[in-house]
């Protein structure tokens, strides 16, 4: 029985996809067109009552929230593929710390930038330039903290690649790509090196190849 991942074209599900490839977990994808509002269909809302992607369906076992899904599969398949959770409870604590940072400090401004710059015209509203400016300033401050952190360790949770780093891949790919804000990464020496390292991993290259951005 192969686990299904809903919504592979979009950024949050890509966290799960790259995690699965790192852990050598077989999966299938179920396409969903968010621009057509398929995530608000009653059938989908039965799986995910908040109407967001991703959702995973593993036989009868259904999970939502990309970071919860990643944690589960990284733990379940601990003994295969890349170790993404650290080797001790303390290392896991650091992974959780920086995964939370990604969720609460990094993701909100970069998500707003994505919505405003890449999706506003497709969703039928004007891009809010003030919001873009504000979000870029917030993201810049977060990246300054990352620059300092990454001058002291190779990856966010320590000297090992983990879910904390992986979680940044999908939206940062938008930032350096279609959003045209690569300078935010390149102007910071350690962030730049870290980005090159994590984005060149074969797992991420595979995701980009198999599930290109939907526009």
């Amino acid at each position, binding site marked *: 029985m192969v686990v299904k991942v809903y919504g592979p074209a979009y950024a949050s599900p890509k966290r799960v996809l790259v995690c699965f490839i790192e852990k050598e977990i077989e999966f299938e994808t179920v396409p969903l067109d968010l621009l057509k509002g398929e995530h608000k269909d009653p059938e989908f809302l039965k799986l995910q009552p908040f109407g967001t992607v991703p959702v995973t369906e593993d036989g009868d076992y259904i*999970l939502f929230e990309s970071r*919860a899904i990643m944690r*589960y599969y990284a733990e379940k398949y601990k003994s295969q593929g890349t170790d993404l959770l650290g080797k001790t409870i303390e290392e896991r604590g650091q992974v*959780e710390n920086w995964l939370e940072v990604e969720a609460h400090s990094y993701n909100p401004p970069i998500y707003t930038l994505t919505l405003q710059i890449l999706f506003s015209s497709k969703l039928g509203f004007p891009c809010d330039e003030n919001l873009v400016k504000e979000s870029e300033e917030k993201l810049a401050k977060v990246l300054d903290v990352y620059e300092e952190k990454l001058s002291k360790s190779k990856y966010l949770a320590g000297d090992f690649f983990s879910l904390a780093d992986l979680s940044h891949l999908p939206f940062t790919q938008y930032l350096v790509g279609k959003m045209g804000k690569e300078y935010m990464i390149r102007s910071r020496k350690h962030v730049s090196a870290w980005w090159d390292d994590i984005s060149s991993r074969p797992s991420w290259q595979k995701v980009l190849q198999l599930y290109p951005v939907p526009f």
Partner: protein
Amino acid sequence: MVVKVYGPIMAACPQRVMACLLEKDVEFEIVHVDLEAEEHKTSDFLLRQPFGQVPAIEDGDFKLFESRAIIRYYAAKYEERGPNLLGNSLEGRALVDQWLEVEAHNFNDLVYTLVLQLVVLPRMGKHGDVVLARSCEQKLEKVFDIYEQRLSNATYLAGDSFTLADLSHLPGIRYLVNDAGMGHLVAERKHVNAWWEAISNRSAWKKLMKLVNY
């Protein structure tokens, strides 16, 4: 070795950590951080938490920040002690993480904004944005509807027992019900109301309420 929890005892995020430590019977001391005096923006504090937020913990040499990372760490470290806050299996744990993520992404920001506008700003002698608060309230109604549905199928968010997923909601809901005049969000929903009664009457939470002196 006593865990040091940095942050004001009245703030929601440090309360999340303290509730967990009390559940797991882990001794801690509170190191007060004066937010009004902007102590969280001092260079000393920023060494501890580079985003200038509370809480942070110091446990001997081990340091951590982000309340939901801290509670996951201690719930795992002291798995054998006190109530099991992480579920009984990998699948159970994943449901805990799922509902913790729901709290973090669908619930927390709405509560934070509403409480800021209706409670915190007025206490500081400033005007809160009532329209913004009302918008948060309407969105919270929809979130609580989903919780009502979930809790009609399970006693607690992640299943049959109290876990970090429920615990994480305690500080925010207390602010909503006791300080922001939003008790109807809970009281008007049968299962949410029963759930709130159960989780807010736990002895660890009551101990914290005494410590905070509410």
